[in-house]
């Protein structure tokens, strides 16, 4: 129960940190999207209901504060969460290499989806943003994800949430 009570507050603070402090720390060059890493962590470690509520909520906050199309982050984060669950079912999701590659891929996928939406719905060509914004962001997310995964595990223990580390696939 404590999870559901604290979740909205923690996620709100996380989104605020992401869009203010991390933007300043990176001098506005790279968007450090911790929220994607949180979603993937939820996909790898949480049960379906908890993880999907987390994904929806974090997407909702980002939609309210940064997005220009309400619901876009909610949808994309649910899709990323679904992908993470599929990976969790089919591979050992504790390897840092896999975490880094998958997180980077998801960050890139999210960005490309937004660029394509702008292209086909609004007729605006943002393809030039892929090397400028999306690739650096995907690299940053990929590099940070293994470190943040271990931090989240400690945080999860602190919140007294059951450890749901994935079993090694035989």
């Amino acid at each position: 129960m404590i999870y559901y009570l604290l979740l909205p507050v923690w996620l709100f603070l996380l989104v605020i940190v992401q869009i203010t402090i991390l933007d300043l720390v990176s001098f506005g060059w790279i968007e450090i999207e911790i929220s994607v890493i949180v979603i993937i962590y939820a996909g790898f470690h949480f049960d379906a209901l908890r993880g999907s509520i987390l994904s929806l909520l974090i997407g909702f906050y980002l939609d309210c504060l940064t997005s220009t199309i309400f619901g876009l982050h909610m949808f994309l984060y649910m899709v990323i969460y679904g992908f993470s669950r599929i990976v969790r079912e089919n591979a050992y999701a504790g390897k840092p290499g896999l975490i880094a590659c998958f997180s980077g891929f998801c960050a890139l996928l999210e960005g490309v989806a937004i660029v394509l939406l702008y292209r086909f719905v609004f007729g605006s060509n943002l393809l030039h943003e892929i090397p400028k914004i999306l690739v650096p962001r995907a690299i940053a997310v990929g590099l940070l994800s293994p470190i943040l995964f271990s931090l989240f595990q400690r945080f999860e223990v602190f919140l007294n949430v059951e450890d749901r580390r994935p079993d090694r696939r035989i």
Partner: protein
Amino acid sequence: MLIPRKYLSLAAVAVLLLLSLAVLSYSAARLSETGFLRKMVLEAAAPVEDAVSISLGAVDDAWKRYIFLVGIGDENRRLRRENTALSEQLNRYREGYLEGIRLQKLLDLQDGLSRRVVTARVVDHSRASLFKTILINKGTADGLRVGFPVLSEQGVVGRIIETAWHASQVLLLIDGNSNIDGLIQRSRAQGVLQGAGSAGCSLKYISRAEEVLPGDVVLSSGLAGVFPKGLLLGVVTGAFRTGEGLFQRIDVAPAVDIGKLEEVLALIPDPGTGK
């Protein structure tokens, strides 16, 4: 039971996924007033972001003003020279302005900018994001509504897309979702200025037959009724007639330095005219 117990949680995921898709399809199709929950989030986030921005801004300010002073002397000399030139220019414009007022009185035209103006501070600006938006510290309590135009002293900034009681989200003119009716000052050719992200903007639907030159000024045409006529949008940086089609590709640099926005003005239309 319709769904076996072991698939219940997966069914919940599927339902939430469909729900998010429904929300996305609904909101992509229409511009609506901000809902209560979204207002609450904006309202809660704005003061926190404001506090963070002010404290970090103070550190940055102290660094630039008192420690990092390399090149200040050269800049000072350059600014003095510019000041002299601009004062001369200002005199000429003042004459033109007074003449314009006289002519306006003669023709009994309404002043396009006789609207109520609300000054707001920018509290958040995600610079490296794909979405080009800013958060300002004024909302419905100050009379702001979705769709109202936002300006700075340099020109058009964008329009409001979300409002809470004391905070609003502004869609910048460089976002791909932004379309403003504009015209080229010199030739009066009309088109639509669309955002192109970090590349600035592009002016669309200008015929290939029109002569457009780098340096041409782009103003709001006032056609859609959101922006008053004659506001500065940007300057043409390049016009290309490559490829086939009826129109040319025109790149426009926004007049506003988006990265340095601190205060903005929101225009409240006259309720009588709706303009």
